[in-house]
């Protein structure tokens, strides 16, 4: 048994996955603070605790994500693009396209049959189209982010959110509320807006089945439905979709360890 760890330090949450061969034996997720090095350590500790393992039993640690260089105790650093590709391929081997919507950026990644990156397009310059957009607008609605998906599924007459900018969309939400629009219809409009932004990234790399949806926003059922409708493709979403970057990172570690012992 060789345990490897993948730690994904995102802009919003830190994820850690412990892998034994091809099974996930432990995982953790917590919101990041200001000191990312501490967050990385904490992510690993929590996952070890969940798996009833000790630090000494971990053969290899790989860091990924926006804060990957803060995984200072790791042996390898891989971009989140490579890790999402690998992780998505591992969970859904027929994946050719990955959409990762995180807390602060969005990526469309086209991959080959081996889980290697062929092309990617990303937005990390503007909060529109990312999880941050949902966070800010959920705040204006007085909703918790987790309430957005279920609300959107109840929508009857989705509104059209015309502002691209998150700041202006927030004002638009307030103005829709003051005009008596149903919150659920506003939420549906917000989802539509994010998916529109994702579509342009997906089109840039080429839309091709199967599509796997990863990152925190993939937990949102309303978003998944909207994505299915707009891409006209079935969309793979794993219960571990938030951990896919960390899983990919861990898999890179497994390969290294195997290479070393070979």
């Amino acid at each position, binding site marked *: 048994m060789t345990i490897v760890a993948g730690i994904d330090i995102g*802009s919003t949450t830190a994820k850690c996955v412990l892998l034994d061969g091809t099974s996930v034996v432990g995982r953790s997720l917590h919101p990041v603070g200001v000191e990312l090095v501490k967050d990385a350590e904490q992510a690993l500790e929590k996952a070890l605790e969940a798996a009833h393992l000790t630090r000494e039993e971990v053969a290899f640690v790989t860091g990924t994500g926006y804060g990957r260089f803060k995984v200072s105790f790791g042996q390898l650093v891989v971009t989140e693009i490579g890790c999402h590709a690998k992780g998505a391929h591992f969970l859904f081997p027929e994946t050719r396209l990955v959409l990762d919507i995180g807390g602060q950026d969005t990526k469309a990644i086209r991959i080959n049959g081996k889980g290697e990156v062929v092309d990617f397009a990303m937005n990390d310059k503007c909060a529109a189209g990312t999880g941050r957009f949902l966070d800010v607008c959920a705040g204006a609605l007085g909703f918790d982010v987790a309430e957005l998906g279920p609300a959107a599924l109840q929508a009857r007459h989705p509104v059209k959110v015309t502002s*691209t900018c998150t700041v202006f969309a927030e004002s638009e939400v307030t103005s829709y509320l003051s005009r008596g629009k149903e919150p659920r219809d506003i939420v549906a409009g917000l989802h539509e807006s994010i998916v529109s932004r994702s579509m342009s990234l997906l089109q840039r790399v080429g839309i091709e089945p199967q599509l796997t949806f990863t990152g925190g926003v993939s937990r949102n059922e309303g978003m998944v439905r909207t994505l299915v409708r707009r891409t006209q493709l079935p969309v793979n979403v794993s219960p571990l979709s938030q951990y896919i970057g960390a899983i990919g990172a861990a898999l890179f570690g497994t390969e290294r360890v195997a290479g070393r012992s070979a």
Partner: protein
Amino acid sequence: MITCGLDLGSGITKGVLLEDGHRVLAMTNAPTRGAPTETGRRVLESLVEEANLLPGDVQYLCTTGFARYAYPERDLQVSDLTASARGAVFLFPGTRHIVDIGSQSSRAISTSDTGRVLRFKMNEKCAAGAGRFIDRCSKYLQVPQPELSAKALQAERPKMVSSVCAVLAETEIINNVAEGVPLPDILMGVFLSLANRTHALMRYVGVVPEVTLVGGLVHSGAMVRALEETAKTHINVDPRAHYAAALGSAILGHARRQRLAAPTTTAASAAG
């Protein structure tokens, strides 16, 4: 003849009362709250009061700004570009380039010596290039609006904001605070970042002196300095330039009213 210019902006509603197209009788403003029409009516009332007039004394009313169509009592509406240009040239006759930073949009305008718009470039899609960026910083840094400029001017080593998004910049700025970057350096970085975005619009239009700043940031010494440093040019500033669009629409209203009042002049001269 008394004309009124009302600038129904997204953040603040500005109003000017003008006599004979050149004498300012009153200037006032109020934050736009609720329906812009209501705010506009309130501003008109204060103007009339300030000038010791009666509502009936206002002979012609011209609106501008984002809600210019939403004011039923208007006689005329003009675009904010046209109005700002006319107002800026009134305040500084040498003006050939106008920078207008509003709360939700910003523009660079090149103008003729008569205040006619020649070219313009506008950003209304992104808060990072508008006054809203400053508003938000004021909120989360807990520095009241009026103190922002003075604090920023104390900066020794301005900390530039690398993010081009107003929302993502928040995280960056809060991290800078956590890392102990002095507040003045952070604030000046915000002004410089907005100046950078504005300068991109200015370059697109082509900067020809004199350059006049209009809109809500004319009171901000830090914004003026940031813009002068970034664009490497002198910038005309006058506190009344906050009212440039309202002023311009009052002037344009006066001109229109005069043409309407003398409809036979052109016919007669054409006949003659």
